Structures are given as C-alpha cells and as structure tokens.
C-alpha cells in the first residue's frame, strides 16, 4: 500500500466521523453538544437526548450501512460486467425488491412486511437472472448484462402496472419507496454482519478483482479461477444490494458514482478501493440524508433526490479535474 492510499483512507475515516456528527446535530430541532451532554446522564433524559437516541442515531446508522452496501456493490458490478455504467441495480435486484415492496404496500401491510417482501423480491430476481444467464453454461459479461437488463425491464413494467392500478395515498408511499427513503429505516446487527462479511469476502479476492478489471482472459492467464470468481462476485454484489434495498428502497447514484469518484482520486487497487468505497458511500449517504431532513424542514425530501443533487456536480467536478491532469 502506498502513502497516498493511507492518506486517502485516513481522510475517509475522518469524513465518516464528521458526517456522523453533522447528521446527529442536524434536523428540524437543533441539538447542541453541551445540551446533549447535560441530558445524557439524567435519569428521565430530555427531548434532545430522545431525538438523538431514538431517531437520529438509528437513522444515521441506517444511512451509513445502506450507502456502504451500495458503494461496495457498485464496485463489484462494475468489475463483474467490466462496464463503467454498471450500478448495483443494473441486474434487476432492485426491480424485484420494488415489486415485492409495492405488492406489500398495496396489500396494506406495514413496515417489517414491506422489508421482507422486498427482500423476497430481490432474492427471486437474483435467482431468475442467475438461472437464465447460466442456462447455456458459460456466462460472459454481455450475456449477464443483457439478461439482467431485460429482467429489470420486466420488473419495471410490473412496477408501473402496480402504480397505475393503485390510487391515492398508497401511490405516495410507493413513490417514496421507489425513490429511496430512510425515514423509517432501521438497521440491526444482521445488516452490519452482511456489510462486514461482504467486505471481508471481497477483500480476500481484491487482487483477483484487480486482474479481472483488466480483462477476463488476462485474469485467467494469471491463475485466477474466473468462473468461480464471477459467481462469487455476482452473489456477493446481489446480496449487498438486496440488503441495502431492503433497508431503504432503491436509493440511486451512490453505487454508480462513489466507485468512480474514488478511482478518479487514485484508488484503483481494489484492496484500497473496497474499504474506501464503503467509507465514502456510507458518509455520502449520511450527509445526503442530513440534507434531506433539513433543506425544507420540517418537510423531508426523499434521500434519493438529494444523492443526485449533491452527486452530479461533485462527480462532474472530479471528472473534469482528472481529465485535465491526464491529458
């Protein structure tokens, strides 16, 4: 690992801490550190403490985990498909989850049911795409991509059908789910475990990812078992995405843009890119969610809107800057 990699990872850790602090402090009701400290040890607490503990900490954790999952999944999808436009949703995981979630909302089922239905939808989509893409044995990126995109389109049609045949307030909550929303998101140890397991598994194959990113044939000639690696990557990325989608709906932009930002900042080696993506993806979504809660407070924006509003200019800036450097 080179020095600029350590610096990058160090900065990202600081960024993560800063984003947490910012997120806990911001919202419709301002909370200051002294007030919080004062209330912390009181037996009956206080309003500020309750807001932080009951609302903001869980939501911030949910945002961080979701962002980290999506960014990791994005890195893997881009390498697996060798396509810079790939994002965690490209192979239809979010479509399947959305159909499940919207179905549950339509039936008037509540929070946990919606999450479970979303997860079920995601898992069935993962299985369908894997089954169809591997019908003829060998699966190459183009075949996998086409299968995923077509299955995605199928889910899209079902989503539209559900939206078109539903009326009133139900459509509103469906749309919020579709745009990605952290308002009711909660994460537990299971979600952290998925994130951690994903990170560890991917880190162990990080050097193979470096090789695969330069071409499948090249990776195979260097001794990478590309067949096995691709299946591992597909399922790991899919489970990461499914988990993220289950927590917060399909929040766009994080999984597509975070990996590219880091590559443009010099983190092309996956041993750096993977942890860096998790950190930056998490921090980014925490900050975006902070804005979503405060820009038009007490109204809240869907966080998916904010990720795009922040992400587009930042990404274009980095792209422009790095272009000037290399040319």
């Amino acid at each position, binding site marked *: 690992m080179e020095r600029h990699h350590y610096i990058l990872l160090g900065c990202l850790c600081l960024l993560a801490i800063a984003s947490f602090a910012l997120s806990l402090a911001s919202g419709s009701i301002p909370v200051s550190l002294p007030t919080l400290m004062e209330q912390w040890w009181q037996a009956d607490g206080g309003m500020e403490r309750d807001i932080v503990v009951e609302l903001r900490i869980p939501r911030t954790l949910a945002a961080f985990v979701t962002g980290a999952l999506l960014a990791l999944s994005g890195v893997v999808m881009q390498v697996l498909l060798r*396509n810079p436009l790939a994002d965690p949703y490209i192979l239809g995981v979010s479509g399947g989850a959305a159909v499940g979630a919207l179905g549950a909302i339509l039936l008037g089922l509540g929070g946990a049911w919606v999450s479970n239905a979303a997860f079920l939808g995601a898992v069935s989509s993962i299985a369908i795409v894997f089954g169809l893409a591997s019908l003829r044995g060998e699966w190459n990126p183009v075949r996998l991509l086409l299968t995923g995109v077509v299955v995605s389109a199928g889910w899209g049609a079902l989503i539209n059908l559900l939206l078109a045949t539903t009326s009133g307030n139900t459509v509103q909550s469906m749309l919020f789910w579709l745009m990605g929303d952290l308002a009711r998101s909660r994460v537990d140890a299971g979600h952290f475990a998925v994130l951690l397991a994903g990170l560890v598994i991917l880190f162990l194959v*990080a050097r193979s990812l470096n090789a695969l*990113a*330069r071409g499948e044939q090249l990776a195979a000639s*260097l001794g990478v078992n590309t067949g096995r690696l691709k299946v591992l990557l597909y399922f790991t990325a899919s489970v990461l995405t499914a988990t993220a989608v289950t927590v917060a709906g399909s929040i766009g932009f994080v999984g597509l843009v975070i990996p590219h930002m880091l590559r443009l900042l010099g983190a*092309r080696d996956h*041993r750096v890119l993977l942890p860096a993506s998790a950190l930056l993806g998490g921090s980014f979504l925490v900050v975006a969610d902070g804005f979503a809660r405060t820009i038009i407070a007490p109204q809240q924006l869907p966080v998916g809107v904010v990720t795009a509003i922040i992400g587009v200019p930042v990404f274009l800036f980095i792209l422009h800057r790095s272009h000037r450097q290399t040319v």
Partner: protein
Amino acid sequence: MSGTGELLACRELAIAAGHRPLLRGLDLGIRAGDCLGILGCNGTGKTTLLHTLAGLHAPSAGHLSLQGRALAEWTGRALARQVGIVFQHHTDEMPATVMETVLLGRFPHSRAWQWENRHDREVAEQALQQMGLLNLAQRQVHSLSGGERQRLALAALLAQAPRVMLLDEPGNHLDIGFQLSSLSLLRDRTHTDGSALLFATHDINLAARYCERILLLKGDGNFLLGTAAEVLTEEHLHDAYGCRVRALPLPDDIAEPGTGYFYVPDRAAIGSGPTPPTGAFTGKA
C-alpha cells in the same frame, strides 16, 4: 523438471474451434532454451493453440503436460508461474497505471490476499526498464500509444517470469527496432534462465530470425513441424499461404541468426498481378 527434460509436451494433441478441427495429432516437446515459431494464414488456429498451451482452452483430444504433469492437474496460480501469455489484443476497460499493470504480472507469485513486496516491485521496475517504459510508470494505460501498450504487455510477462513464454503476434504495433530488441531480450532470456519461447506471427522473417523450429499450420488439421530451414521453403510457404513467397539468400554479414533467407512475396503473388505504376511518385526524382 521431468525425466525427459521437457518443459511442455503435447501428445496426439488436437484442437478445434467449435466443431471445426484446426489441428490433429500434434506431438511436440518444448525444452529449456527452445524457441518455436507458429505460422499459418488467418484462422488456422495459431491463437487457439497458444491459448490451449496456456490452459485457457481445452484441447479436443490428446494429452498436454507441463514438466511431466498433466496441464489440467495444475492449479491456476502454480500454472501461471510456469506459463505466461501475451495476448494479441489488449483490453483495458477499467483505468490503471503502467506500474499497476506490470505489477499484475506478480499476481501468481504470492497469495491472493498478500501485498506485493519489495522484491515484486524491483522485478516490476526492472521489467519496465528493460522495455524502456520506466519513465512512463505512473502514466494511465489508456494514454499510451499502441507500441507502448505492446511493450507494457511484454513487460508484464517479464515480471511474471514464467518458464514458458507464449506470445501472440509479439511484433504487433512495434516498430522494427523494438521488434528486434524486445524479441532478442526474450530470446536471450531463454538461453540464460532455461525458459522457452513460443510465438505466433504473420511475420515469416521474424520467425526465421529467432526460431530453431517452426510449426506451420494449415488450418484443416494438418501441419508441418521441423527446423526453420526445413519448414520455411518456398514450396511449403506457397502451400500454407496460397501465395508465392520467394526465399532470397541474405548477404553473409546479416545471415546470422536465422535461416539465412529473406522471405518476400513473389511478383506474381497477387492474383491480378502487379499494379502498373501510376506515375504518382515518378515526378521529380
């Protein structure tokens, strides 16, 4: 090392592209210090044969062994320490620097979760130095010229340091100076460290210069295998390429190394005959 001293051995090897047989019944032994040229016109299976020898393509029949052990029994990483290949086309879908690309050649030399150590870096730097790319180490690969990329691929092979080096069109994109310097470097290496070099090429003269033996593929399953002097005759080349090739004796001072002949298409090589001079270049000489 096997008892017979063969690094790589093919017995009754057959390869096919889909259902089309390309090569049948090849018996070939490659020893330390060997250099074999693979010739044949387009689509005769040169690339497929190289991929087969690298373990990337399954032969349709026959036996293939590396150091006395069946190729299929080798694990990927161990195989990649023994056999390395430079592909004809270089893909780079994802961004990387020159140094990162060369360091990939060190991939088979440590476990997947290990970082490259000082030795790996030194080997990589030396490989870049040998291919004249050290000053470009931090450049993005996509900003390189075609020739620089080809040298980069050769440098990655040097860093990989396999016993058997397989090259697909090593002269691609390289100017004549780099063609000779890079192939001479690899050829010298076969003499000093007991590795072997196999390369597929369309350049008969390049093969004649460096290879003791030539495998001339016909593309229908048949082939010719022998010393360069035996295989590279006007008759065989005409037969293989469907075009008349003349072997002109070289002057003594440049006949070595090689067969001592320079191979050029005959005047009657092109079906319609030579195009009449247009006069465009005959103006003011």
